[in-house]
């Protein structure tokens, strides 16, 4: 773990990626079939997009953050031609980041088949240009941003899966790297504990404000982030689930809070707030599924995301590899083809927490070096995005005031 180094892709903005993927971005649901067909059979092409016809600043920021992510070498934007979200403007922003980008409206190029054919041609050209531009360069822990998300939690998640990831986060931060965790709605009940981890008075204020907004959200929508499967797996309350979920943050001081599509201002441990702001449409929904949170972590620049699942899950992620960790030996046995790491060995006494975290760090370095994670090998590249409002004017001012 100590002296691991590998080759990454140096991007024009100085950031380094661990993959050289191409991205197809659709700007309305009506263009999604064509976008998916363009990517079909192309191992290095991932698809993201936004389903709504009416644009949403939050969604545009997220798509731009992913389209200029260090793991992405080139981008094709596909629109239908009626929608508010503008594919040509996304492509322009990507070109301004120093990457090749193309865009077109389906309505200007015939129907389904001619649009797919045009898209395939553009992808071939983008791949040529992305490969030419790719500069392989040495990379270390200090240049990694790693996210952590949990899903399908159960009674052992807080005992093994999340604490092992927390220990790996401690190691990453000690080596100058950046770690991001989210799911503020799974920290409900832990206000004082969160604030006690603040690196500065400003961070303490941010953590308190973020907690208060999340609690207000849960009260307003009358929903706490604990699901039937969590109960069936032995978790009895949101407070119990929160303690397990918070364990994935490790023990380092929290530098502050970033919001969706923002990047951490410097290295260290950061909390990502994905909870919508209260405004004239009310909050909307937060954390509707695991994939949304994973995309938020990747939009913050994470080159890899660790996903801790006690009950088991079969998702992967677009743009950045997902590494699946379980603290449940039974889940590991039942879903070995999907699970990258068995943290349950800590509970059976086979490994100490430190040994498990060190092994996980070596797996992270292997994946950063190009070894596919299990979700990558299975072809997973899930993506999810829906309307949300952050950085909005006050409730009284209204959305467009």
């Amino acid at each position, binding site marked *: 773990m100590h002296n691991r180094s590998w080759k990454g892709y140096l991007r024009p903005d100085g950031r380094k990626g661990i993959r050289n993927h191409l991205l197809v971005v659709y700007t309305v649901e009506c263009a999604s079939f064509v976008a998916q067909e363009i990517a079909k059979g192309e191992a290095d092409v991932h698809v993201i997009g936004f389903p709504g016809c009416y644009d949403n600043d939050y969604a545009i920021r997220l798509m731009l953050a992913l389209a200029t992510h260090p793991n992405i070498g080139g981008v094709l934007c596909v629109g239908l031609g009626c929608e508010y979200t503008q594919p040509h403007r996304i492509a322009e922003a990507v070109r301004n980041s120093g990457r090749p980008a193309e865009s077109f409206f389906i309505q200007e190029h015939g129907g389904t088949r001619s649009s797919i054919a045009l898209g395939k041609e553009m992808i071939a050209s983008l791949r040529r240009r992305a490969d030419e531009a790719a500069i392989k360069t040495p990379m270390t822990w200090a240049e990694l941003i790693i996210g952590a998300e949990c899903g399908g939690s159960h009674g052992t998640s807080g*005992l093994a899966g999340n604490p092992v990831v927390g220990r790996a986060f401690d190691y990453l931060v000690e080596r100058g790297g950046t770690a991001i965790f989210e799911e503020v709605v799974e920290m409900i009940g832990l206000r004082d504990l969160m604030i006690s981890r603040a690196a500065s008075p400003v961070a303490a204020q941010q953590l308190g404000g973020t907690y208060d907004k999340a609690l207000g959200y849960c009260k307003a929508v009358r929903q706490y982030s604990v699901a039937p499967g969590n109960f069936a797996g032995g978790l*009895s*309350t949101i407070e119990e689930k929160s303690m397990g979920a918070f364990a994935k943050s490790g023990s380092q001081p929290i530098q502050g809070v970033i919001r969706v599509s923002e990047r951490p201002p410097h290295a260290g441990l950061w909390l990502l707030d994905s909870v919508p702001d209260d405004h004239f449409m009310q909050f909307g929904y937060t954390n509707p599924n695991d994939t949304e949170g994973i995309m938020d972590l990747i939009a913050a620049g994470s080159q890899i995301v660790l996903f801790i699942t006690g009950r088991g899950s079969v998702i992967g992620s677009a743009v950045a590899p997902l590494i699946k960790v379980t603290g449940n030996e039974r889940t590991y046995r039942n879903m070995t083809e999907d699970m990258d790491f068995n943290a349950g060995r800590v509970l059976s006494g086979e490994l100490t927490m430190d040994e498990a975290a060190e092994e996980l760090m070596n797996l992270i370095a292997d994946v950063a070096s190009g070894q596919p994670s299990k979700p990558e090998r299975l072809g997973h590249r899930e993506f999810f995005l829906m309307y949300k409002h952050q950085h909005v004017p006050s409730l009284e001012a209204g959305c467009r005031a």
Partner: protein
Amino acid sequence: MEKNYPAVVAFQVDAADNVATLLGDAAEGSLITVVGPAGKRDIAAREKIELGHKIALAPIAEGVSISKFGVVIGIATRRIEPGEWVHLHNCRSQLDERSGSFDVHTGAPGDNAYA
């Protein structure tokens, strides 16, 4: 009641916790070996308790805090005896207003009508 079942291990995270989490499935009457910072000891399961679920380590009166990780994770909604399964039927969140409406076995909500 089955006797002489192979011991199942339960993990007590904090020495002050009044519950421990099972790392295997326990049948009614089986012996549970509790491990953790408070040391090793045995307790008999009063009922069937599954992996990931909690067993009471001490008597807990109605209205008293249930602690895991050294923090309060809920309140006892009735008296709980040592060796009992601690879950949705006898433990309630202090925050979640839907807590108390969930099926004790599946966790499925029972507070909406589907009509």
